[in-house]
């Protein structure tokens, strides 16, 4: 029967190796950059290619114009409005991702925007008559790339790999993930930018051996040392600075112009113009020996000056030197010597600056490689990974082994950091740590998770602060609670605390507090719904249903194991609540399901508490026995 049907198929005639677009999953790699963003996909010949916009351009300026009427413009038209709407045209928003207001104010680059502090301490931008999070604004860029990709691939996008600087911390990664979710993109993976570049060099250029990837973009710097062997891309070490890039070069030139113009408090318009002119001059000086800058003065008239390449290089020399430390550290962490490298690869638009190239050549003792366009190479590499994860697998049997860029630690007595996952540990990774109480009768303990290399907690970035409650009162040092820190393949952290004894397990999932809260994401998603985005509603419904199923299954298992902890009335009550959620989850309203989830959680919390108490008591009993035996 099957055979007959097969023969009747009209495209039997096609050659077996022929690939048709409709057989492939529509997936892309996206480089969400500070200055430019772009998407790429693997074409029918199996080669990666960037996806052009309607005008044939690959690069989309990462610039968003927020109109007071609530609409937005992204890319070139947004950039064109920078001078007429200086406060409503947001550029380089990547620098704000996962950052607090203080981080931005203390940073090197000044902005013409009105910034404020939002939920969870995250910075927000006042523009277009409203308040916007960097995540919202990034999502606008991603939406535009999604539309371009869908037009090019001929249907709805089925998934994307989005790249992030390798040195991005957890909050910055979480923010990027949230932006993908807001843009309605099914995120297959967050991929480190230098690793993506290495993929492109390995697969499209056939490079093998030990390579350093020097990636200096608009706002971030990464250095990664990778070993490339037969389809395996193993990151040996990584380092960088997530607030250093071409924007800083522009700032230095801009400061020079403002100084010479005698302006100390420029208007937002002048700031935008100075920024644009500085960037134009910087780009021109990559080719020319000198270039003429022209800026309209506030009071009328023109400021102009000739900028020589030498003068420009002098002003940015110290910034370029800042990349040296992370490079030396990464080489050392990799366990190799500089001389063992097969090559150094340049990635990112800022490596077009001749002084940067000279610095890299000096530092590594060899001429750097730039066979692939440094602006495109990250997106091209990400396209390979998307093809693999999306299930097309045309890039062969490749394997990516990455590392965590920053050490993960816990606060201990006196504000010191106890390191539990050192930097450059291969991911995914999990480390468990046992905690105990330090006061008699203590029933709760606070745990603070930080990321960074410094020894004091306040010098590192706080990722999560949470409390373990419900510890039965006992003498100091008697309680034992195992906390597991897991970093997944996206570089994202999950913390779970558990009392694991007689097969009973309680998990407390803690998400880092810095990013958007789930409530905030849902609110923004709901706003998007009002604009009639049906697919988002479906997605949320699916997510809520899966969550309901998971909770029901977990509760069922808990009842099976521990129904003895409940009175018959309580048991009936819990079962009823469970049945009610099951009923609701058949419906089409995700909000009702979420309410049902919250309700069930409230109604069964006492049961969870009793189970936790029981397991902790069992553990303690065992512990005391051991001590007796000693």
């Amino acid at each position: 029967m099957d055979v007959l049907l097969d023969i009747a198929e009209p495209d039997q005639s096609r050659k077996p190796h022929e690939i048709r677009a409709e057989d492939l999953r529509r997936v892309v790699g996206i480089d969400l950059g500070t200055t430019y963003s772009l998407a790429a996909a693997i074409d029918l010949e199996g080669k990666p290619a960037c996806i052009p916009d309607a005008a044939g351009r690959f690069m989309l300026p990462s610039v968003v114009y927020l109109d007071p009427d609530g609409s937005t413009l992204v890319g070139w038209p947004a950039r064109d409005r920078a001078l007429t709407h200086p406060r409503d045209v947001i550029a380089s928003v990547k620098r704000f991702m996962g950052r607090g207001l203080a981080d931005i104010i203390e940073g090197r680059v000044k902005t013409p925007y009105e910034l404020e502090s939002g939920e969870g301490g995250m910075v927000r931008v006042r523009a277009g008559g409203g308040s916007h999070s960097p995540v919202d604004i990034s999502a606008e860029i991603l939406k535009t790339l999604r539309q371009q990709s869908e037009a090019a691939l001929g249907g709805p996008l089925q998934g994307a790999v989005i790249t992030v600087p390798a040195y991005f911390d957890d909050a910055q990664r979480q923010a990027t993930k949230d932006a993908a979710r807001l843009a309605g993109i099914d995120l297959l993976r967050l991929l480190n930018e230098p690793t993506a570049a290495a993929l492109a060099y390995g697969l499209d250029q056939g490079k093998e051996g030990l390579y350093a990837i020097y990636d200096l973009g608009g706002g971030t710097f990464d250095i990664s040392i990778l070993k490339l062997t037969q389809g395996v891309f193993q990151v040996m070490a990584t380092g960088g600075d997530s607030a250093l890039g071409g924007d800083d070069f522009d700032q230095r030139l801009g400061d020079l112009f403002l100084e010479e113009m005698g302006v100390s408090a420029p208007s937002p318009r002048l700031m935008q113009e100075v920024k644009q002119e500085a960037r134009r001059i910087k780009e021109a000086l990559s080719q020319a020996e000198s270039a003429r800058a022209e800026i309209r003065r506030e009071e009328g008239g023109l400021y102009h000056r000739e900028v020589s390449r030498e003068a420009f290089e002098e002003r940015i020399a110290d910034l370029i030197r800042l990349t040296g430390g992370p490079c030396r550290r990464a080489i050392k962490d990799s366990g190799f010597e500089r001389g063992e490298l097969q090559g150094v690869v340049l990635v990112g638009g800022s490596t077009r600056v001749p002084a940067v190239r000279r610095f890299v050549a000096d530092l590594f003792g060899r001429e750097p490689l730039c066979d692939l366009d440094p602006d495109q190479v990250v997106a091209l590499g990400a396209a390979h990974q998307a093809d693999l994860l999306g299930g097309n697998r045309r890039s062969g049997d490749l394997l990516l082994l990455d590392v965590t860029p920053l050490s993960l630690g816990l606060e201990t007595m006196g504000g010191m950091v106890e390191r539990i996952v050192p930097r450059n540990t291969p991911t995914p990774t999990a480390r468990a740590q046992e905690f105990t109480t330090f006061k008699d009768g203590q029933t709760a303990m606070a745990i603070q998770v930080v990321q960074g290399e410094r020894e004091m907690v306040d010098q590192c970035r706080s990722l999560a602060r949470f409390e373990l409650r419900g510890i039965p009162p006992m003498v100091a040092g008697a309680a034992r609670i195992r906390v597991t820190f897991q970093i997944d393949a996206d570089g994202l952290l999950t913390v779970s605390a558990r009392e694991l004894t007689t097969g009973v397990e309680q998990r407390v999932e803690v998400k880092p507090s810095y990013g958007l809260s789930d409530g905030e994401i849902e609110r923004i998603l709901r706003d998007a719904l009002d604009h009639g985005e049906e697919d988002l509603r479906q997605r949320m419904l699916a997510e809520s249903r899966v969550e309901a199923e998971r909770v029901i299954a977990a509760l069922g298992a808990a009842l099976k194991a521990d129904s003895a902890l409940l009175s018959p009335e309580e048991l009936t009550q819990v079962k009823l609540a469970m049945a009610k959620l099951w009923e609701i989850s058949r419906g089409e309203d995700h909000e009702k399901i979420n309410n049902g989830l919250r309700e069930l959680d409230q109604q069964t919390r006492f049961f969870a508490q009793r189970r936790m108490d029981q397991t902790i008591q069992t553990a303690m009993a065992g512990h005391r026995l051991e001590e007796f035996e000693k």
Partner: protein
Amino acid sequence: MDANRKTCQGCWTCRALLDQKPLCPSCGAVQPPNPEEDFFHVFGLDHLFDVDATVLEQVYQERQRQLHPDRFAGRPETERRFSVEQAAQINAAYQTLRSPFTRAAYLLKLAGRPASGDGGSIKDPAFLMEIMELREELDAIDPHSRGAEERLRRMRKAMEDRMSGEISAIGAAFRDYFAEGDPQRLNDAGKRVERLNYYRRYLEELDRKEEELY
């Protein structure tokens, strides 16, 4: 005990009996890792100190090829979680076995003679004096002074030579122990591992000093 329980429960998705392997022999689904599994076993290696780095890397990559979350991108949430847990265990095993120090400490733990982490069991006053002097010498170096980089490089080289000597001796002690079962040789390995720990701490301090150079 834990492992047996898991085997009895069978595959989480098709309920088939499991055979201690990470993938179900019947349906191919990833199973949760056994947290008690020893790291040598994860790579199918015997309990020996001598591990060929090339072989270890090959087996490591093979295991990751099989279980890395990239392999399970389109699969159900539960299976993806198990693959993350499996990959994390493989990474932990690799991290432990690839460095001679952590490998030796791990072998001692398996042999029931764990090296105390704080090195407090070293009673040899001459050794402790020597370490103290080395640290004082390191402390006295101003990283911004002329020739500091070169001096630090020489000190690192001297320490690394000393460590590789200690590692060779640890290897010999373990070989004897595994061949003849002489507990004295295990004790010897244990003492040397604790000394190695002091050297490692010294190198960490040297690292911190070098950081100031950059």
